[in-house]
């Protein structure tokens, strides 16, 4: 493509310039500002002067420690057990609170622990809530990206057929997207209600009452799953539309050729449709991943991160700290960490999916 007809510095800048300037002023500049804040102790509102604090916001969020404890023994050396028979260990707070022998653990909390033989190894985190938020966010992304992208493609293929009234279905599948996620989250709280929610009533009716009532959003083992399901439902139409616009760029003549060759449906998809969707696929995957990493509104409306931190997410924590707890430097630090993290992933993704030359 590098001919004199396609080369023009001035036109390139002229056409891309307005977008570049606007984004520089309204996204890049504020983000650089946020990076700056992450190295200070700036509060959202405070009469105290701002001070440079180096990396302490980062170490506060990312600090991790390992502590191995031996079981408690009685005078005879026998291992003490709890009432339910599990081995009893000394209380962690003896090590993490005001213990001059273990200054490195001060203020840390148990993130998770594993038993190795008799002893038990505790992984301590300086900020357990943030650690859980990172894990939850990754789970969310790993589930939502493939499932939502896949379902959206299936839907797009379904409604790309020539059928009378297909536009009605297109509109209906898109409807959840039309309604704001805040509104959708409010409506789904009724559906997920543990007492008389529609979902419980539906499952109860289908199984003639055999299915136990579940407090979907109030149970740590179901809350994140419930939010994942709702999120996929809400946004799948969005990606369906993107797939659809990709599908529509594929020339009908290719399908005609495939039909003449006697290709099966699967072969047509595999050798005609899918190769034609390559750029769309990259787009859908990246957009879903970005949106999934930014998970916030659903959490804010439905669970506020609970129960027991099972739905904490990175952006929810950034907002909770930056605005709710007026710790704007802490909130900014979280966004910088998120940025670096996602950037690393997308560079990796790009490297893995690079076109082999």
């Amino acid at each position, binding site marked *: 493509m590098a001919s004199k007809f396609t080369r023009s510095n001035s036109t390139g800048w002229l056409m891309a310039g307005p977008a570049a300037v606007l984004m520089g002023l309204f996204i890049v500049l504020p983000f650089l500002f946020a990076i700056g804040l992450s190295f200070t102790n700036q509060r959202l509102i405070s*009469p105290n002067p701002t001070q440079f604090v180096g990396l302490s916001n980062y170490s506060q969020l990312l600090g991790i420690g390992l502590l191995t404890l031996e079981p408690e023994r009685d005078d005879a050396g026998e291992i003490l057990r709890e009432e339910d028979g599990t081995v009893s260990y000394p209380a962690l707070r003896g090590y993490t609170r005001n213990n001059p022998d273990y200054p490195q653990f001060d203020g840390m909390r*148990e993130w998770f622990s594993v038993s190795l033989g008799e002893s038990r190894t505790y992984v301590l985190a300086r900020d357990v809530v943030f650690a859980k938020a990172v894990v939850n966010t990754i789970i969310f992304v790993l589930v939502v990206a493939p499932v939502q992208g896949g379902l959206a493609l299936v839907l797009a293929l379904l409604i790309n057929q020539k059928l009378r009234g297909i536009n009605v279905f297109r509109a209906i599948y898109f409807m959840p997207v039309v309604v704001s996620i805040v509104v959708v989250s409010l409506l789904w709280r009724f559906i997920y209600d543990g007492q008389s929610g529609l979902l419980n009533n539906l499952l109860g009716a289908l199984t003639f009452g055999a299915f136990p009532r579940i407090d979907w959003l*109030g149970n740590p083992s179901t809350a994140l799953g419930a939010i994942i399901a709702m999120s996929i439902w809400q946004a799948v139409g969005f990606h369906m539309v993107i797939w659809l616009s990709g599908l529509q760029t594929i020339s009908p003549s290719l399908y005609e050729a495939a039909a003449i060759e006697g290709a099966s449906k699967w072969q047509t998809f595999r050798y005609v449709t899918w190769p034609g969707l390559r750029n769309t696929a990259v787009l859908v995957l990246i957009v879903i991943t970005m949106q999934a990493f930014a998970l916030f509104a659903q959490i804010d409306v439905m669970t506020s991160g609970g129960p027991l931190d099972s739905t904490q997410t990175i952006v929810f924590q950034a907002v909770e700290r930056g605005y709710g*707890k007026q710790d704007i430097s802490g909130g900014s630090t979280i966004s910088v960490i998120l940025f670096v993290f996602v950037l690393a992933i997308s560079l990796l993704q790009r490297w893995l999916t690079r076109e082999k030359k």
Partner: protein
Amino acid sequence: MTSLRLLATSIAITTAMSSATFAQTTLTMWYHGAGNEVESNIVNQIISDFNASQSDWVVEMQSFPQAAYNDSVVAGALAGNLPDILDVDGPVMPNWAWSGYMQPLQIDEAKIANYLPGTKGVWNDQLYSIGLWDAAISLVTRKSYLDELGLRVPTLEQPWTGDEFMDALAKAKASGKFDYALDLGTAWTGEWYPYAFSPFLQSFGGDIVDRSTYTTAEGVLNGDAAVEFGNWWQGLFNDGYAQATQDPADRDNGFNSGKYAFSWNGNWAALGTLDAYDDVLFLPAPDFGNGPKIGAASWQFGVSAASEHPEGASAFIEFALQDKYLAEFSNGIGLIPATASAAAMTENYKDGGPLAVFFDLSEAQALVRPVTPGYVVAAKVFEKALADIANGADVQDTLDSAVDEIDADIAKNNSYGF
């Protein structure tokens, strides 16, 4: 083009004329009542009365929906765009005063001598804000429920003890008549948690921060009394008396439709309950050992630090401190009037009125939330700790980490000036 210029000129002339005819200064005011028609009408009435009563000042109001109000004020302050007069939720006031958003009121102290203690916003020994009303919480139930369950009616002089309260919950649960014995309002996230539940902690003998120094929570939020409170709190959910997650619709409508035997709710919801049942009782908080306690302080008026006319702003607030306005707010939206004389003018709070008990509750049991700029953060930490404990987290560990977080925040803010 010509018409545009013409328009611009005519606008300029009108503005010039209006400022020439009235040598008045405009005072801007922010209020949290958008979407509440009755409340807005009363505030508008006060403003137009004030504007008509003198010729120096004209107050103009901008209202905000309550849920978005605090964020709007903070954003306005950051952008250097605060009004002259603003209203502020009582416990948040020290934070705004400390941050330099507000300045002390210039009003005659004698005017507020007989106001309920919870309506006075005092920080650093100076009055920053004053409320025309207070709010109070009671344990709502029905006389018929108590009779059926064989329970005595507690009084201000002789409230239920903690044991009596738990006995009442156990009996309500055993009766099988209710979905849950107690509606705590866990659906209302946010300020409701510290406002409604920290008084339980205080009745056990603990607190959110140590009020003797305001520089730590160690010992008060994770001491023996607090752990005892935490175990009790967790028991409410473990024993099936209350829901850790509640549908907001159940909160709004559950007690009135017979789902709960008791409801821990504010006076603002009382009128609806009175409509639903004819034998409603508003009971005082139970006493867990250190006296029965409920929260105090509601929305109050103050003057922003940005105001160039604090004397005008104060004059407006002083003007609003009239019993007739206090009574109007109370009649309109069910709030507790700040003075006994105003209470006597209301339908609900006059002697023998259906809500008069709330005035007495406010007087007898109310304790303001910790008066410190750090309250805003401590309240969030407290809320999360309570939600975690309700969902089964280890009580001591959770309270310990809440203390750590509060103390770290206090340290980061140079002890908030204490």
